[in-house]
């Protein structure tokens, strides 16, 4: 099956800092989503981005499908940005394959 690798595994930030999370995948995909999992386990949709660039407030994402990677940018981080960020991809088979996640801790 398709392999999804996220880096870094852990990230500690000072409030106000910027950061970049990376997702590499091993094959072509027709779906890529970024999620934020809150402490209660809810997966919150951040971006649906099989290709291109999108922005939503302080968050933005870029997927370069031909080079099989995606980046999630967090600018001016806040303590509420803490949590686990997951990248998930679908390879034309209806199922999402998740990476292991990046745990982000934002300190005040």
């Amino acid at each position: 099956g398709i392999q999804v690798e996220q880096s870094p595994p852990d990230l500690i930030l000072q409030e106000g800092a910027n950061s970049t999370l990376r997702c590499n995948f091993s094959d072509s995909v027709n779906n890529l989503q970024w999620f934020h999992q809150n402490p209660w386990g809810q997966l919150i949709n951040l971006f649906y981005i099989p290709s291109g660039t999108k922005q939503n407030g302080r968050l933005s994402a870029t997927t370069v499908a031909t080079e099989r990677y995606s980046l999630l940018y967090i600018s001016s981080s806040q303590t509420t940005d803490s949590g686990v960020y997951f990248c998930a991809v679908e390879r034309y088979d209806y199922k999402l394959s998740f990476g292991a996640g990046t745990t982000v801790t934002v300190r005040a």
Partner: protein
Amino acid sequence: DAGVTQSPTHLIKTRGQQVTLRCSPKSGHDTVSWYQQALGQGPQFIFQYYEEEERQRGNFPDRFSGHQFPNYSSELNVNALLLGDSALYLCASSPTMGDRGGDSYEQYFGPGTRLTVT
């Protein structure tokens, strides 16, 4: 517009018992997928239901089974529970995936059911 809902929120069962988890998809969605998330890991795909049939299945034993109803809601059943089945079970829904012509659709997740097997 109601999102994906799941019940119950938490559940404690004993090894060897059976459990049923329930999911109602987001309004306008007819495809339901189930995922298992063990502590500290990313979610793992169990199976997907479309038109009341299992269309795709991940690497899970036959102890895991499901059902989809005409109103698109779904159940996940796990028989002969093992300690290793303790996890967060997530349901996701999406618009029809019947004839996508290569297109994909965004999946939306419910809040999950946390199952503890003792």
